[in-house]
């Protein structure tokens, strides 16, 4: 029996699973926190009364515009204890954001903000106004209306937002590399590990990492979409 050399080299590679675990931990925490943050922002963008919404809307998109490592650079400057912001956080919370997992989470949240906010905003915008009104006439508060009526009825949009954010955080490495400092077990996520292996010209290891990352995320997305398609089947009257 002959084995293709690519597969052979994959099998031979000893993978360090810590970066992979760290990646999915970071992606999960980021996506969940961001969902909590993005929902009120999106809601306010759609239903708020404030005039300057366009400005805020555009600002939210800004993290997309700069190369990740440059955002990482600016965040590094801001998070650093020699900057007032970093100093403040360190004084108040005893937390140093540079080269720490918490810092990665905050950076990922900032960086992925548009991925979460924009699709949810679009979803809320296309709900019929009467749903909200019906809930109000039933005496429900704005909060109950959002939680029980609006959010469940823009599931496809929220799902899209969540998937984009999750996958994007899995693949992100520019920001992470810059403010994380590539510290094993703390900030060395899979994407950075792959990057390192490629830089080290150690392709089999890079391939192996990429494959695992790919496979796990593929399975997650596949599950998500299969469930989604089952739940949200296009209405077909009997």
């Amino acid at each position: 029996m002959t084995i293709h050399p690519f597969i052979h080299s994959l099998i031979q590679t000893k993978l360090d699973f810590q970066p992979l675990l760290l990646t999915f931990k970071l992606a999960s925490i980021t996506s969940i926190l961001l969902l909590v943050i993005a929902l009120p922002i999106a809601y306010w963008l759609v239903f708020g009364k404030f005039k300057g919404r366009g400005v805020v809307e555009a600002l939210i998109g800004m993290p997309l515009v700069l190369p990740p490592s440059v955002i990482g650079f600016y965040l590094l400057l801001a998070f650093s204890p020699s900057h007032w912001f970093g100093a403040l956080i360190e004084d108040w919370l005893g937390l140093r954001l540079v080269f720490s997992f918490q810092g990665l989470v905050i950076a990922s949240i900032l960086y992925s903000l548009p991925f979460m906010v924009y699709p949810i905003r679009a979803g809320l915008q296309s709900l019929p106004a009467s749903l909200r009104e019906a809930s109000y006439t039933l005496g429900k508060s704005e909060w109950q209306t959002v939680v029980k009526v609006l959010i469940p009825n823009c599931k496809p949009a929220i799902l899209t937002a969540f998937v984009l954010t999750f996958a994007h955080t899995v693949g992100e490495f520019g920001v992470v590399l810059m403010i994380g400092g590539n510290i094993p077990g703390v900030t060395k996520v899979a994407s950075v590990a792959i990057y390192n292996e490629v830089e080290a010209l150690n392709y089999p290891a890079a391939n192996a990492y990429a494959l695992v990352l790919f496979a796990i995320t593929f399975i997650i997305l596949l599950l998500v979409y299969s469930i989604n398609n089952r739940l949200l089947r296009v209405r077909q009257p009997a």
Partner: protein
Amino acid sequence: SKPSEKIVVATAANVQYVMKEIQQEFEKESGKKIEIVVASSGKLTTQIREGAPFDVFVSADTKYPEEIFKNGGSDLKPEVYATGALVLWSKDIPETDLNPQILATGQVKKIAVPNPKTAPYGEAAVQALNALKLYEQTEKKLVYGESIAQTAQYITTGSVEAGFNALSIVLSPEMKGKGHYILVDSSLYKPIQQAAILLKHSETSPKKESSEAFYKFLYSPKAKAIFKRYGYK
């Protein structure tokens, strides 16, 4: 040993192959553990300035360590631990045909060089081309790799017909036997000096002593021999 007691060595990407061997040797000799963090010299410099928890910085040139020294990141001036050598490398052109002149011919459509702005080998490559009066004829063919590793990828994947790189890369176990190379005459470019710097530690730091030990080891004859095997002078 606990992670917090490990010496963290910030290593420029193009020295990482040698560093692995240096690490093994040092760990064997001293019994102390080393953690190697790899990134580009520019990134590492920025991170060190913002307080990254690194103990020693092994750079790919002299500019970045000096920058750190100037900014007060260390009490000791950086020192050169090795001098690199430039090679001309190709995937398909046989060694017998490989020489700088071929770059000006139609046989070579693209030439990969590391970005001369950030990578010392790129700077050296441009110096060499200028010295050979080939720069004007080849300028349009140049493509710039972000790092020495990326430039190596351009060459070994056959995306370019030829390119400049570091001897240490060509000799690394991962790249051995991939294509053909010749050494570029070292009189055509300024020596590619690579320096390291011992980063500041507080007097009470548990890592102060071991970091100093590692820094010293970098300049030991044992390390020199390893560097030599990888094509450094």
